[in-house]
């Protein structure tokens, strides 16, 4: 029993060590040459433009459902006209960043882990190294940059579409006047909320991509290993996003409010 625990702890420590090493190498690769510019552009397109549909749909339906649910609760206090305020605050501070990040974990995290994992088991990573290319610079750096910078952009889009979905429900189901809906949003929104909502996706984007790259590059055991790496990447990425959400929220509350 003790040896099992010892082995588990050693394995966990090794994973953390390798994750930190990869992250450090990726940061080093950002500001030193060579920088594979066309790979960076390609990843911005794949992670950013490629995730747009799923993020738009998730944002739209989340905002709409949120308006329906809060409308029911607000009716009990006769406060239906402030539904926009609740929708915007929830979307911008919490649901937009977290749901966008979870969508990205499913779409991007799994894709990266599967792609890099396949490259490992088919010796393509070794072939890259043998051809004089550092896999971290070629594969990890472009993905990390794209993850860090595209997650906030997608979150802002998701927030806006969510508020729009909320407006559709408020206007046509809850019969709230459009002007009232939009004015309650602007009145109820503070800069602190915006900072809170904008800071989170940077952290989430970084975590999703670095975890996926780490898991993908440590794949072993053939095609079964690739499947396992994909699952681990999604599970670890999702848990990391939710845990990081709590900690970033605490830090931002302490700093801004």
């Amino acid at each position, binding site marked *: 029993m003790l040896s099992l625990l010892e082995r588990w702890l050693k394995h966990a420590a090794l994973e953390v060590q390798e994750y930190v090493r990869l992250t450090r190498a990726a940061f080093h690769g950002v500001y030193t040459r060579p920088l594979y510019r066309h790979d960076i552009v390609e990843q911005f397109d794949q992670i950013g433009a490629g995730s747009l549909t799923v993020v738009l749909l998730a944002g739209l339906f989340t905002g709409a459902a949120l308006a329906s649910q809060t409308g029911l609760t607000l009716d009990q206090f006769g406060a239906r006209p402030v539904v926009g305020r609740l929708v915007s605050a929830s979307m911008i501070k919490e649901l937009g960043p977290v749901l966008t990040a979870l969508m990205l974990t499913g779409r991007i995290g799994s894709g990266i882990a599967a792609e890099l994992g396949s490259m490992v088991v088919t010796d*393509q990573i070794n*072939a890259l*190294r043998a*051809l004089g290319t*550092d896999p971290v610079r070629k594969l990890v750096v472009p993905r990390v940059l794209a993850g860090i910078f595209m997650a906030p952009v997608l979150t802002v889009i998701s927030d806006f579409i969510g508020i729009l979905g909320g407006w559709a429900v408020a206007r046509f189901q809850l019969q709230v006047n459009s002007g009232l809906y939009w004015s309650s949003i602007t009145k109820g929104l503070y800069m602190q909320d915006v900072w809170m909502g904008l800071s989170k996706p940077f952290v989430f984007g970084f975590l999703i991509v670095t975890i996926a790259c780490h898991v993908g590059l440590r794949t072993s055991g053939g095609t079964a290993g690739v499947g396992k790496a994909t699952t681990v990447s999604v599970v670890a990425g999702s848990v990391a996003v939710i845990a990081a959400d709590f900690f970033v929220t605490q830090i931002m509350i302490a700093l801004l409010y």
Partner: protein
Amino acid sequence: MKTQTAAQTAKQILAEAGAPVVMFDHVQLAFDEKVVLQDVSFTVIKGHTKVILGASGSGKSTILKIIVGLLKADAGVVWVNGQRVDQLSEQDLMSVRADLGMIFQEGALFDSLTVRENVGYKLYEETDMPLEEVDKRVEEVLGFIGLAEHIDKMPSELSGGQRRRVAIARAMAFKPSIMLYDEATTGLDPITATTVDEEMIKLRDLENVSSIIVTHQLRDAFFVAEHMAHRDANGKVEVVPATPQKERQAEFIMLRDGLIIFEGDADSLRASQDPYIRDFLS
């Protein structure tokens, strides 16, 4: 008086015929409890062929990975082109790898890139060579291995033998002086395997490339060791039986459980009375 640096002296020695381009000196490697290589020592001479034979798991591919620096030996010294690769960092290994071409088992082609992009990968990505020149070189090497018409195909559209040949083209595109073949013919039918063998021979004899061939395919090992490429007066390339002098330039190593149990030429290998070798050859 001008003093020479160590690098200049090494370069001068390596330029001479008969210079050692790869040297293993008492190399050992183990993964946890499993010993992979035990006290392995050998030398590869410039322009010669070293064929490493052995059963699966005997440590053959590990030797190639140590030469390229993909794995580090636990003990011993490894020299490649005058540099001690066992002591170099990943960054410093890049200069050693610039002169090494490696063909992996199954080819290890980049499946998201076309044949053209695969073959020219190093030149496109890691050099400042103008694109027109890279394209010209890619077309030249694909012509050399007879796959020019497949230049715009994806690796998934090629047969197994074609993929191996594209892998050879990718490794030779940047004109390395040493080629490492890791089971380049395993899993191929005899006719396709012979085509791949002939590419290895042509590369060795026409481009003066030193070769290390890891295989357990005896037929291919002896074919490469006992044939040579010859260009006739009309410029036509033929693969013909090797002269005795050329045959002696191909040496065999037999590995068993990470230990060298035989080293010598094809005739000595055939004449060996070691029961394991006799079993292996039968």
